[in-house]
């Protein structure tokens, strides 16, 4: 027997066989990391490589991946702004803890603080003046630059949170942080640019490093209401001046009496049934479908009779009752055959008059509705002028251009802990933005991956520590850490904006019109980023530059 087995007819392996065996999830489910774990101190690029680009990459990876300290690696703060000098500033309010206080924030949000609401971290009462630091986040630029994590895990599935508005509130005395006294809550009426009714309230637990679901935020539980509600007194005054009209009586055409069917007359209240009162000799005939009627019942003496309209609008229900018994029957109004032709002619005339009256009534009601709307508009503009400042006007104006002011609502949050609160709903980010290698095939799709290279407008390589996907329509942002640049899987045309942060804290970006033109079928995709420039050093300026 030779040393080798020479085989000239090897059987081929089919694509199906390969597909069955190369499933990555199945592969990983069978993987047990070696003792000590994989996350050892990494010296990936310690030895000189060949390509210059590789050396550059090596340099910054080494610089930014110092050997791990013994024990657990230090975690970055959970709220981690990518650039220190471009962040959402907080407003500081000084309040007296001895009295209840309601603050009107520059955006129009209201913060109600009850007296004696604060204690020190070791549980001591806090008296005197307290500084409240408060800031809000209403757009993805603010969310991104504040470094707020938006990932949310629900039953093991990863989502991003789609925000309808978010705020952070903290309290200090003499520079030392305070806590809320157990049982005390701050009632925050947060201005929101969307009136959709399926958001929830979440609290960011920075210790557990996750968003904690608190409750629904809906009109039904009175935590979501229009921001421009009309003054109740003015509304009542208006309604008194223009009382609601009585409903018009829609004519009814009586049927032609069936000589073989049971029928009877009733002395009903004609003002209750004006549509019937107009016909002479009207009877009620037991409906064909009625099985409960027994002729014997007609021989009995009843104490009372009650008539109401049937749900089908064509029939009525008659109820006969005594002290001890009650019987109901479905009936239809009829007239005898000789009178029916007259009844039909009469009905047609009444029907025509009804249509005219109904049309006139609708016009009057629409005019009243418009007047009420104008009153609300006037109230809203007065509210803006009288109560709120220029920044609120600007905030409202911005919102109008996007959504229309009817969409603005107040969202009520009962704040039981200081920190970051959010009106959000989970959004299946992966389904929306991930790239798949065989879209539309109808089969289980494999996720597509590519490596990202980031260059400036001159084609020079940019060393980014962060790239942030901004989704305008869902008002959220997703930061991609540098370590994932080698296996990106988002589909650029689905992203409204890509913001990059360089290691020297410069902001670079790529807008949707550029993202749409990227060819993502290559293994390496080059992102040509524009530079924000040194003059852009506030969130407001960045928002203006990026038109978000």
């Amino acid at each position, binding site marked *: *027997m030779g*040393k*080798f087995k020479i085989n000239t007819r090897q059987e081929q392996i089919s694509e199906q066989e390969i597909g069955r065996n*190369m499933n990555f999830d199945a592969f990983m489910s069978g993987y047990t990391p070696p003792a000590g774990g994989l996350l050892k101190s990494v010296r990936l690029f310690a030895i000189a490589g*060949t390509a210059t680009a*590789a050396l550059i990459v*090596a340099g910054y990876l080494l610089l930014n991946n110092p050997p791990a300290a013994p024990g657990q690696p230090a975690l970055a703060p959970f709220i981690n702004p990518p650039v220190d000098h471009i962040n959402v500033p907080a407003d500081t309010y000084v309040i007296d803890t001895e009295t209840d206080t309601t603050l009107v924030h520059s955006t129009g949000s209201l913060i109600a603080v009850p007296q004696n609401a604060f204690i020190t971290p070791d549980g001591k009462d806090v008296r005197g003046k307290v500084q409240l630091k408060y800031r809000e986040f209403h757009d993805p630029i603010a969310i991104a630059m504040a470094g707020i994590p938006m990932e949310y895990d629900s039953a093991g599935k990863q989502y991003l949170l789609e925000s309808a508005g978010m705020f952070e509130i903290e309290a200090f005395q003499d520079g030392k942080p305070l806590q809320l006294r157990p049982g005390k809550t701050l009632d925050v009426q947060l201005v929101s640019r969307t009136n959709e009714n399926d958001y929830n309230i979440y609290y960011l637990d920075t210790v557990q490093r996750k968003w904690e679901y608190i409750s629904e935020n809906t009109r039904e539980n009175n935590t979501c209401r229009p921001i421009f509600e009309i003054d109740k007194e003015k509304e009542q005054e208006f309604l008194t001046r223009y009382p609601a009209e009585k409903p018009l009586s829609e004519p009814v055409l009586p049927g032609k009496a069936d000589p073989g069917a049971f029928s009877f007359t009733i002395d009903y209240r004609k003002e209750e049934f004006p549509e019937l009162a107009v016909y002479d000799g009207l009877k009620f005939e037991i409906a064909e479908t009625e099985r409960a009627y027994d002729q014997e019942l007609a021989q009995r003496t009843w104490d009372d009779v009650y008539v109401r309209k049937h749900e089908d609008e064509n029939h009525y229900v008659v109820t006969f009752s005594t002290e001890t018994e009650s019987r109901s029957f479905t009936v239809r109004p009829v007239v005898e055959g000789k009178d029916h032709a007259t009844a039909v002619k009469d009905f047609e005339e009444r029907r025509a008059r009804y249509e005219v009256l109904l049309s006139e009534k609708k016009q009057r009601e629409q005019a009243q509705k418009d007047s009420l709307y104008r009153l609300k508009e006037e109230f809203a503009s007065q509210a803006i002028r009288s109560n709120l400042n220029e920044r609120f006007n600007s905030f409202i104006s911005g919102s109008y251009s996007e959504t229309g002011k009817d969409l603005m609502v107040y969202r009520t949050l009962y704040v039981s802990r200081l920190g970051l609160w959010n009106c959000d709903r989970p959004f299946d980010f992966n389904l929306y933005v991930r790239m798949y290698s065989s879209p539309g095939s109808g089969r289980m799709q494999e996720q597509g991956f590519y490596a990202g290279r980031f260059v400036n407008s001159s084609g020079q390589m940019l060393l980014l520590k962060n790239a942030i996907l901004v989704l305008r329509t869902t008002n959220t942002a997703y930061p991609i850490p540098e370590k994932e640049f080698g*296996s990106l899987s988002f589909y650029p045309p689905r992203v409204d904006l890509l913001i990059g942060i360089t290691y020297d804290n410069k902001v670079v970006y790529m807008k949707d019109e550029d993202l749409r033109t990227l060819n993502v079928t290559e293994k390496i995709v080059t992102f040509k980023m524009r530079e924000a420039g040194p003059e852009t050093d506030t969130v407001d300026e960045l928002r203006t530059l990026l038109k978000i």
Partner: protein
Amino acid sequence: MLTAIQMKESAYHRTAEEIDAELIQVKAAQDDPRRFEPLYKNYYKRILSFVYHRLDNKEQAFEITAQVFYRALDKLHSFKPQGLPFSAWLFRIAANELNQWFRQQKARRTVNIDENGLSGLKESMEDSALIDKRLFAALEELDEEEMELIDMRFFEQRSFKEISEIKNIGESACKMRTYRILEKLKTTLQNTQ
């Protein structure tokens, strides 16, 4: 006289940019094994092909291929690029896993030969009239290391550059060894005429 060894280069050429991008993928997988997926998907077929080429059983090929990737994940933290593509490192692991398997199973290595590879080898030996049977017998006389070089070069049609990276030897040394093995094969064939 042997003819010059002229085979078209395999689709192996990697640009610096591609190697650069792959290093970033490796780094991602070092930080989080779940991010090994793009590398796994990129190389699965090639490793499977490498493994199956040395076996005659599909199921064993799939098993050993999985074992190669498990081993790669285990050792990923120690991967040092040294300017070489990740694939070379993976092929070395695959070769080691196969050798270990052959030893454990006391099995013989299979040399799967197709027509293209065979004709390439015969052309390289000048006398293409030699019958396959004698050539197969001559191949049997090679040692493991020699067979591996011939297999990679002719039956897997790899470039010398790639072979040198997988075997961790210089490219010219790789060419020279292959040349000598071909000489040896020819001598064996002439002696068996």
